[in-house]
């Protein structure tokens, strides 16, 4: 079986299925918005940050991704449907419980965040409303801006212009991810055969590694999915580094 994503691993069985279901680089990517948002608060409560990260891991990392697989099996895993459904529901319920507990302890402003989060995780992944929520904007908002804002509200109990700007950054950054990922995913998962050639201009500057000017070259899948997937790897590391850097400010 061909790889369904650049982070897919060789082999079969439930271990591979669970690994690929969790989308490790993307889960880390989106969880990074939590410390980024939290670190903007004047005073960082590390325990609270830990609970917020755990809640988002349960709802988004496990719940969201398992619901996504339930809806059409895009990753072609063999995890039984009831296991996917029950794990997703219990994970999201765990996140809701953590959220409500923190909300009652810290600030009631978290309650609207929990209501929105628990709705969008189902609406986005199960494509409610004829796919209205399964859209670039909602992806960027729900998995980018929303974790950053929620983490900040949990810490600072308010919303400030700074966090709105950071939320906008997270929205745009996640939107970029979706654009690149959709392109790569389409060619990797949907296309079974690629045929074609391209000719290089003979009058251009010499590019390292290309010595056959004017010749005909065979178009390969790597030519199409290589750049967006490499960009996705770089962007993953960049956002994780940004989160780590901001957290270091509070040590």
């Amino acid at each position: 079986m061909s790889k369904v994503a650049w982070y897919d691993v060789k082999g079969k069985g439930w271990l591979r299925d669970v690994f690929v279901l969790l989308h490790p680089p993307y889960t880390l990517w989106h969880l990074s918005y939590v410390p980024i948002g939290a670190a903007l608060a004047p005073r960082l409560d590390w325990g609270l940050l830990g609970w917020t990260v755990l809640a988002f891991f349960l709802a988004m990392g496990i719940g969201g991704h398992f619901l996504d697989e339930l809806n059409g099996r895009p990753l072609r895993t063999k995890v039984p449907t009831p296991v996917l459904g029950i794990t997703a529901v219990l994970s999201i319920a765990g996140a809701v419980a953590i959220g409500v507990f923190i909300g009652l302890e810290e600030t009631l402003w978290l309650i609207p965040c929990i209501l929105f989060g628990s709705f969008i995780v189902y609406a986005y992944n199960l494509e409610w409303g004829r796919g209205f929520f399964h859209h670039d904007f909602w992806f960027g908002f729900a998995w980018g801006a929303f974790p950053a804002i929620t983490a900040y509200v949990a810490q600072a109990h308010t919303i400030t212009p700074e966090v709105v700007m950071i939320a906008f950054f997270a929205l745009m950054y996640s939107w970029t991810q979706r654009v690149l990922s959709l392109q790569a995913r389409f060619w990797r998962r949907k296309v079974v055969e690629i045929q074609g050639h391209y000719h290089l201009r003979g009058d251009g500057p010499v590019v390292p590694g290309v010595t056959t000017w004017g010749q005909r070259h065979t178009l390969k899948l790597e030519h199409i999915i290589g750049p967006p997937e490499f960009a996705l790897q770089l962007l993953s590391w960049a956002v994780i580094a940004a989160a780590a850097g901001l957290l270091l400010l509070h040590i």
Partner: protein
Amino acid sequence: MVPWWSLIICFVTGAIVGIVALYAWWYVTYWIANKARKTKRKETQ
């Protein structure tokens, strides 16, 4: 101080709401697919 059992209440409520949401989605999806299949069968007859 929030009592610890509120966590359990929230978890159970969340799970029930989730199961209902999932069942509703499955029902609607199945209903749409079934309707489309019936329409197609009528057309071919």
